[in-house]
C-alpha cells in the first residue's frame, strides 16, 4: 500500500527495514531529515542499532568503516562538503572492500556556499571506488537503498545511493514500503567473511609495496566491472519479489525509433519524460535515457542503447571546470571506443538548485547554439515563464 512520504522518511524507513547495526552521521542540509528519523527509530526501540552522532563527517565515515570490519551492517548519509570531508575515508572503505551503504543527498559544493541540489558532490568522488546509483524518485530511493545492501555485500564494495537534495529529500510523494518479512527475504543477515576477531588475529589495511599495490587496484577494478552484472541481476530479483524495478544500470524512455535522445541522471528525468511526450505529440522522434548506475560506468550497455541514435544530448548537473560535462566526456569515450562517431552534445544545467523546467529541457532538445568556439560543453538557458503554456492545460484543470 502506498503512503505519501517525504523522501528522507521513505529512505529512512528503507534503512530501518535493512536492520543496520550501526548508524553514524554528522548532520548537514539536506541530509538531516534522514538521520533525524533514524535517530528517532533507535530512540524508540524500533531499530536495534547503535546510533552515533559523530564529531564530523570524517568521523562518521571512519565509524562505519570500523563497524563493518567488526561485522556490523552500517549506514551513513551526508552531502556536499560533508561528503568531501569524508573523501580520504571513502577511498579507504573502497580499497578495503567494505560493503558500506550511504545516501548522498546531492547538493552543490561551495564556494559560493549553496545548500541546493546538483551532482557536484558525488561526481567529485567518482574515482573513490564506490558504486554510485542516481535515483529518480522517492520510491526508487527507498528501493535502491534495499538493493544497495545486497549489491554491496555481494560485491564487497561500498554503494552510494545518490538522491537529489530537496527535490527528493524534502518532497512528499507516494511511496510503497515493503514489509519487514519481504526485506528479510531479499536481504539476509550480514555475514562478513573478513570480520575482525580476536580469536583469529589478522591485519586489515596494512601497507602495500610497489610489488603488489597495483594488483589491489586490478582486483578492485575487476570487482567494479563485475558489479554491473550484479546491479542488473539484483534489480531483476527485486522486481520478482517486490513487483517493481529501479531500472538496473539504466532506463530508456520511448527509445524505440528515437532519433534524438537526452541522457541524464536523477530527479530531473521526470520533467525530461514529460518533454519527450510533448515532442512526440508534435511528431518529433525524441527519447530519453536515464543513467542510474554511473559507477561502474556501463559503457557497453550505453553504446547498445545509443548506437542507432542520430543525435545524443547529455544534460548533467555537474561540471569539471575547464573540461566540461563529466558524463558527456565518458560517453564520448565509450562511443568512440565502439567505433561510433555520433557527436555528443554536452549541456550543463541545474547547478546550485537552478530549476530545470520543462521549457528549459525543451530548449535543450531543440539545441543550444555555441556561444564560444572550442567549448566542449554548453550551459542550459534560463527558465522563462511563457504565457503560452499557461493557456495550454486551461480548461481541463477545473473539475
Amino acid at each position: 500500500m502506498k503512503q505519501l512520504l517525504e523522501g528522507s522518511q521513505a529512505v529512512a524507513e528503507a534503512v530501518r527495514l535493512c536492520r543496520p547495526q550501526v548508524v553514524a552521521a554528522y548532520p548537514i542540509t539536506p541530509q538531516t531529515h534522514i538521520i533525524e528519523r533514524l535517530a528517532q527509530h533507535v530512540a524508540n526501540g524500533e531499530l536495534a542499532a547503535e546510533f552515533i552522532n559523530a564529531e564530523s563527517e570524517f568521523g562518521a565515515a571512519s565509524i562505519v568503516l570500523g563497524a563493518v570490519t567488526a561485522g556490523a551492517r552500517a549506514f551513513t548519509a551526508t552531502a556536499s562538503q560533508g561528503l568531501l570531508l569524508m573523501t580520504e575515508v571513502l577511498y579507504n572503505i573502497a580499497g578495503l572492500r567494505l560493503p558500506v551503504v550511504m545516501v548522498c543527498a546531492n547538493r552543490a559544493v561551495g564556494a559560493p556556499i549553496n545548500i541546493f541540489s546538483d551532482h557536484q558532490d558525488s561526481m567529485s568522488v567518482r574515482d573513490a571506488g564506490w558504486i554510485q546509483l542516481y535515483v529518480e524518485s522517492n520510491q526508487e530511493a527507498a528501493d535502491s537503498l534495499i538493493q544497495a545492501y545486497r549489491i554491496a555485500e555481494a560485491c564487497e564494495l561500498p554503494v552510494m545511493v545518490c538522491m537529489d537534495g530537496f527535490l527528493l529529500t524534502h518532497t512528499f510523494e507516494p511511496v510503497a514500503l515493503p514489509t519487514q518479512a519481504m526485506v528479510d527475504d531479499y536481504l539476509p543477515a550480514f555475514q562478513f567473511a573478513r570480520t575482525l576477531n580476536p580469536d583469529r588475529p589478522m591485519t586489515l589495511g596494512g601497507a602495500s609495496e610497489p610489488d603488489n599495490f597495483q594488483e589491489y587496484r586490478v582486483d578492485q577494478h575487476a570487482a567494479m566491472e563485475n558489479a554491473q552484472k550484479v546491479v542488473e541481476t539484483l534489480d531483476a530479483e527485486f522486481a520478482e519479489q517486490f513487483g517493481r524495478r529501479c531500472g538496473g544500470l539504466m532506463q530508456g524512455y520511448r527509445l524505440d525509433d528515437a532519433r534524438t535522445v537526452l541522457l541524464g541522471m536523477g530527479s530531473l528525468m521526470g520533467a525530461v519524460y514529460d518533454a519527450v511526450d510533448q515532442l512526440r505529440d508534435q511528431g518529433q522522434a525524441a527519447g530519453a535515457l536515464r543513467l542510474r548506475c554511473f559507477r561502474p560506468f556501463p559503457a557497453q550497455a550505453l553504446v547498445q542503447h545509443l548506437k542507432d541514435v542520430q543525435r545524443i544530448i547529455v544534460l548533467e548537473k555537474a561540471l569539471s571546470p575547464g573540461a566540461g560535462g563529466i558524463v558527456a566526456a565518458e560517453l564520448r569515450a565509450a562511443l568512440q571506443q565502439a567505433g561510433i562517431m555520433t557527436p555528443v552534445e554536452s549541456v550543463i544545467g541545474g547547478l546550485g538548485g537552478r530549476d530545470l523546467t520543462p521549457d528549459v529541457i525543451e530548449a535543450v532538445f531543440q539545441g543550444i547554439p555555441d556561444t564560444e568556439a572550442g567549448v566542449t560543453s554548453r550551459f542550459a538557458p534560463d527558465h522563462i515563464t511563457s504565457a503560452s503554456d499557461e493557456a495550454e492545460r486551461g480548461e481541463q484543470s477545473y473539475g
Partner: protein
Amino acid sequence: MRISTFREIRFHGRGGQGTVSAAALLALAAFEDHFESQAFPKFGSERRGAPVEAYVRISNTTIRAHNQVYTPDVVVIQDAGLLRSEPLLRGLRQGGLIVVNSEQEVDDVGNKNDHFRQVYLPASSIGERHLGRPLPNTVLLGALAAGTGWVSLIALEQAVTKHLSSKGEKMVTANIAALREGYGFVSSEKEPVS
C-alpha cells in the same frame, strides 16, 4: 473517457507560519481522496519571518516532474503583507483562485483583466481562536477545499489527524475545528466562488 486532472497550488508564507506543513497537509488530503499528489518546499535559508514558498501537485496520473510550480491554479497567501514585496500571482492561470489571509479585501491584487477568483478570510484570527496562536494554515486549507472542491473536508480532517497526531489530541481537535470554520466561511458566502 477518463477526465484528466492536473492541478498545481502554490503557497506563500513566512518562515514559522507552517507553509511547508500546509502544502504537505493538502497533498496528504488529496492522497486520501485517491489522487496522486506531491508537495515540496522552496527554502531559502530557514529563518523565521523570511518568505517561504511551497508547492503541491494533484493529479490522477503519476506525477513525474520535480520542478517548482510556475503556472498555479491556486495561490494561497498566508500573509497579505507579502503582496507588497513579491509578485505572488506570477503565472496564475486565467480563472485561477487566490486565497488570502486578510481581514479585508486587498486592493490592486493582480490585474483587473485577469479574472481571478478571490477569497479573503481572517485566517489568523480564526486560527488564534482555535489554536491559541495566530496560525492561519488549517483555516486556509478549509477555505481552499470549499473554494475548489478538489479535496474533501473529510480527507483534510484525516490528513490533520494523521499529521498532527504526535502533537496530541487537543491539537488535532483544534485544527479540525479551524479547518471546518475556514471551509464554512467560504461555502456560506452568497456568491459561490467556484
